[in-house]
Every structure is written in C-alpha cells, then in structure tokens.
C-alpha cells in the first residue's frame, strides 16, 4: 500500500509515522510538503503527523489547517480515502472541520508525556479492525493540548454512532468523556492524540500500535 505523509513547518513526528508505515506496508511513504496542492496517485492512506506546526501559534493546528494541500486532503477524504491524524494531526483535522470538536489546553496545564491505557471502543473501523472491542491497549501520549471538547449533542452523536474509536482508561488531560480518538461519519477519517506509531516494535516497549497499521493495510489492501 502506498501512503503519503503531510509535512508542515514544525511537524516532528513525520519521521516516526514514515518509519512505522514503511515497516508495515513495505513501501516508503511519500512525504508531501504542506505547500503542495496535489497528492500522489494510488495512495491508500494520508497521514498527518504529530508535532507543533507553526509553533502552535494562534491555536494548535489552526494555521496548518489553512495550508495549500488541505483542499486535496478534504477532497480525498470526501472520496473515502483513509486519513489518519495523530496528535497535532488530530488538531489539524478538527481545525479543518473534517472532525468535530476541538482540542484545548490540558486540564492541570501540564504537558503530558507518558504511556497511557486506552480502551478500543470501536473495533470495526478500517483503523481498528485488528483490535477487539473493549480491548485495553497502551500508547504513548505527548501533548499539551489534548483536552477534547465538543458540545453535549455532538458527544452524544459520536457515542451513539460508534465514532469514538479510542477512550482513555485513565484521567489524562480532561477530555470530554475521556475521548482519545474520533472518527468521521463515514469512518475513513480518524484523529487521535495518542501515538500508535511509537508502539510498533519490541524495542518501543510494546507493539500495540502496529495492529492499527496492519488493520489498515488489510482493509485498504496492498
């Protein structure tokens, strides 16, 4: 499966996700600078990496979400192509409006950087098919603004439609209903604060993240 990783000024997990994708797919991802306007043909996934695009100026992800490449990402997402936003990538997806809600400063104001326990809430999406429903997994988080906020109608809708992909199994950042990752209505866009790409091989201290990419590969096809 061919993949594309979008690189913004201030992205710093672009290499991590590229290594993870290459490990699992066997194909080196195409790195796409945010100033581009077209995506490569034949890709099975667009990944928006973690980092601090534009130094988190204005709001996390706000300026990156107005980059030239965004129109192509929105068109691809509308066409059903899987899009994965991790950490800053999740913030960018909410700022674009591909996902509802917003990510605010963590409650307690601390930068949280550690492994956290998560529950897989929806094990049927293209991203989570290799997990069991309610399975407990451990991914690292490293963020200052991961406090998920949405109005209660939106939260009810997300939960009712099975669009909460991952939930924190412990108090991490104050997120509404402990939400760690959400899907769009069609299920082809996932945004999450934890970093599955940092739990790929035994040397990472665990391989829970690997199955997210393996599941994608299986669902989307080689």
């Amino acid at each position, binding site marked *: 499966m061919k993949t594309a990783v979008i690189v913004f000024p201030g992205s710093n997990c672009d290499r991590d996700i590229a290594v993870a994708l290459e490990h699992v797919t066997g194909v080196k991802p195409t790195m796409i600078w945010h100033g581009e306007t077209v995506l490569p043909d034949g890709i099975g996934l667009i990944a928006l990496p973690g980092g601090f695009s534009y130094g988190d100026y*204005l*709001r996390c992800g*706000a*300026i990156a979400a*107005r980059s030239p490449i965004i129109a192509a990402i929105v068109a691809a997402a509308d066409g059903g192509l899987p899009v994965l936003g991790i950490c800053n990538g999740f913030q960018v997806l*909410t*700022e674009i409006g591909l996902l*509802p*809600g*917003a990510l*605010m*400063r*963590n*409650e*307690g*104001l601390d930068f949280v950087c550690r492994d956290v326990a998560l529950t897989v809430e929806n094990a049927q999406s293209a991203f989570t098919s290799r997990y069991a429903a309610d399975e407990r997994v451990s991914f690292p988080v490293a963020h200052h603004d991961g*406090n998920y*906020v*949405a109005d209660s109608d939106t939260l009810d809708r997300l939960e009712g439609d099975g669009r909460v992909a991952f939930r924190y199994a412990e108090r991490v950042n*104050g997120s509404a209903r402990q939400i760690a990752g959400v899907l769009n209505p069609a299920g082809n866009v996932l945004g999450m604060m934890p970093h599955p790409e940092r739990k790929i091989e035994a040397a990472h201290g665990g391989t829970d993240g690997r199955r997210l990419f393996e599941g994608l590969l299986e669902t989307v096809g080689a």
Partner: protein
Amino acid sequence: MQRRRTIGIAATDAQQDVPAMKLSIFVTLKPGVLDPQGKAIHKALDGLGFSGVNDVRAGKLIELDVADDTSDAAIDEMCRKLLANTVIENYRIVRA
C-alpha cells in the same frame, strides 16, 4: 462611525499612503467551555491574597490594520475562517 487614519510611510513616498483602519478582535471562550488557563490565573490571584475574584476567563486580542475599504463581511469572514475557532470561541470586532 469608524475613525479614519492615514499611515504615512514616508514623505517622499506619499503616493503609497494607504488609508487604513485599525481593528481589535477579541477572541473569548464560549460560556460553558472550561478554561484551564483562566482557572490557573484565578488560583494564582487567590494565592496572592486577592479576595473577591469570582471567576477568570482568559482570551486573546488580535489587532488588525486593514485597508479602509475592507468590508464588514470580509472582516467577519477573517474571524470565522481563521482568527476564532467557533466550535469553542466567540469573537467581537471593535473598531479603534
């Protein structure tokens, strides 16, 4: 209503004088959205011994210097498209 002003770039460059308008955009969190920074400031004020502080909300002020003929609709669009995230924030436009 709006006070107009001309920015003098340089006396020798007078033809480039652009009639300008100064705007203050106040971006504030919507009521009901938890404000961790406001809470921390509140706690610090309490810690300094100031009594009677009921609540603190932190927001931001963005100052714009725009061409005089910028329409209200365009200014509003700037706020909605970038300056504020209307999922969590309100904005108020004040002409200087």
